[in-house]
């Protein structure tokens, strides 16, 4: 049997007190989500969306001056901000600053996880509320796609929380790593396998690997979520990311369960060094 010299960092009883129990961990996660950094994050997400509204108005003005009477889709632009903030809030809710995961035993990890997902979803409500209010004030209607997008966003929070916690068993800067994976590595891989090399159809790939672009895609026809995939459109044509509500909810949740299982397993190995 291969013996590795790498030892996963064991629990340091002095530095990190392993938290046991579903309820204690649940509360810890919620506190993470609604800490000072969390509140600042919520405010920043609202400001981002307002900036995008201003940007859309400004671009419309530019286009109108050139004689092209095109009005850019407001909802699409606003929804671009959602994936970024979803991942930011989800990873923040799952982490304690500069620490490895100190939830212990299955119940504890589950408690930490459920709390993180709940916290992440709740902290995204101001952003969605801003979008609804802006649409109502500017356009006078509130398209129903908002609710579907919220459901997909919640499913994605579940995925990101599980992924962050899994990375956090080994790596302290799990938030940054999650960002890298979700916004750069996975879309890049999908782009290379799909539209670039043409090995697989983008629809098939999205049926196996959930792309965060789908959060903003519901009702806005795949404008992308500020991921690398959007930039790759300049290299090779990328058709709109295929979306289907059921798939967009089930797939991230099932991947989340896998990552959760891995988290439990890795934490178990750490505990029993």
């Amino acid at each position, binding site marked *: 049997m291969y013996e590795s010299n790498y030892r996963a960092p064991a629990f340091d009883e002095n530095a990190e007190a392993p938290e046991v129990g579903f309820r204690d961990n649940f509360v810890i996660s919620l506190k993470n989500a609604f800490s000072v950094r969390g509140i600042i994050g919520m405010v920043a997400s609202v400001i981002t969306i307002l900036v995008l509204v201003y940007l859309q108005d400004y671009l419309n003005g530019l286009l109108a001056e050139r004689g092209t009477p*095109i009005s850019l889709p407001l909802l*699409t632009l606003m929804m671009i901000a959602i994936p970024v903030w979803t991942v930011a809030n989800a990873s923040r809710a799952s982490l304690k600053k500069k620490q490895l995961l100190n939830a212990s035993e299955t119940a504890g990890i589950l408690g930490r996880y459920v709390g993180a997902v709940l916290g992440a979803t709740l902290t995204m409500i101001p952003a969605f509320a801003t979008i609804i209010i802006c649409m109502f004030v500017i356009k006078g209607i509130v398209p129903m796609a908002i609710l579907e997008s919220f459901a997909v966003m919640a499913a994605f929070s579940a995925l990101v929380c599980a992924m962050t916690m899994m990375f956090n068993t080994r790596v302290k800067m799990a938030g940054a790593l999650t960002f890298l994976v979700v916004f750069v590595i996975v879309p890049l891989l999908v782009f290379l396998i799909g539209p670039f090399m043409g090995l697989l159809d983008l629809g098939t790939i999205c049926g196996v690997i959930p792309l965060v672009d789908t959060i903003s895609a519901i009702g806005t*026809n795949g404008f992308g979520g500020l991921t690398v995939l959007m930039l790759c459109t300049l290299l090779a044509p990328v058709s709109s990311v295929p979306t289907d509500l059921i798939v967009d909810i089930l797939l991230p949740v099932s991947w989340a369960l896998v990552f959760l299982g891995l988290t439990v397993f890795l934490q178990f190995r750490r505990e029993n060094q």
Partner: protein
Amino acid sequence: MNKKILALLLVFMMAFTATLPAVQADADDEEDNDLSDSIIIKILEAIHNKSYTVELTDDHAANRAIIVDLINSVLSSESGGIAITEEFADILVGYYATMVLKYVVSGDFEYNGGTDIDAGYVKAASDIPQYMIDLISGKDTEVDYSKMFAECGLSIDLNLGCDVNTDGLDHIGLDINDMESSPISSLLTALIGTDNPDAFNGMDVVAEDGSIYSASANLKLLTYLGIFADSNIGKTDKDPYAALRIVLNANGKFGESLNRISGTGPESIRTGLELNNLSLDLVVDIAKNGSKTNISLTINKALIDAKYYIGADGDYKETAIHNSNLMAMVNETTIVVSGDRNPVTHEVSIITDAEMAKARADRSQTVNDIIDEAKDGTENETEEIDRTIPLIVSAVLAIVGIAVISAVKFGKKY
């Protein structure tokens, strides 16, 4: 009665596309007029639950007779008493055939006899629900539908031929220089890409005055047009609006080929447009906002995949026409034709299955058949999202995840 439908349907299509720019001028008067006697209402009533089929066989004489009957029935009801002969029908068909030639190939062709009408068919069906007509004309309707829809199906396979003579050719190709510059056409240029625009310039050929060619054209077209409307006109006192969602799917091909009979010039000239797929999903939104009238056009989807070719003997040029990358990225763009820069756009969603079933039950079977044939034949198959793989993958992953968690939780006890 049925035989007038084709002519009226063509008039309706032309009137619809012609009135769109004119709406801006009329919009202020729209709600005030009594529309029940207008030409639009007459046309709508004429194509309410109607189908029209013309079958053309290999028997040229019989086909000619059908065309003569058709034209005579339209003429007799409109101008009373004039009837055309078969020879005149030949000339009429030949004249319209050469009109197409003039635009598509060269302006120097004239009709020279020898009309041929080969086997083919024209099937048209349309349905506009009665309550939609009532609503537009302002009558009270018993049924309170907030969304209305109309459907048209068109299936054409026409093969026509005639002889043409030329008074000297020096160039063949499309003559598209006089397309007006408008917001729509500049948007079209941004949305539609070609990979060989040189094909549109045509080519230089030399044919002497008096050369005679035998021209044959074939047109295959399958079109489905669905119009879904949402309006509050006549229902509330708020600012009125009418939003029309137009879904147009089409595919088909048009080809024109000329073979030299006498004189000098290229042995054969051929040109055509093959439309693999045209899918348009537009919403036209007309709303009054105080004293301003906002008219905007939202493009939900605009996909085109076509090929244009032109050739004379060995010289051959072709180009693919497709939607540009820009279109794939920016859907639901709104073009403001007049009024506010950020207009309120009204959602018009597709009709529910139950409402569709009820409307279909009210139609005749032939109308349903033709419309279904057009709808199925032009549906873009890549729209279907196959859920099998994702569902299987989700199930497997979920089981794996739960298995690992359970194994860790319950395995520790052993």
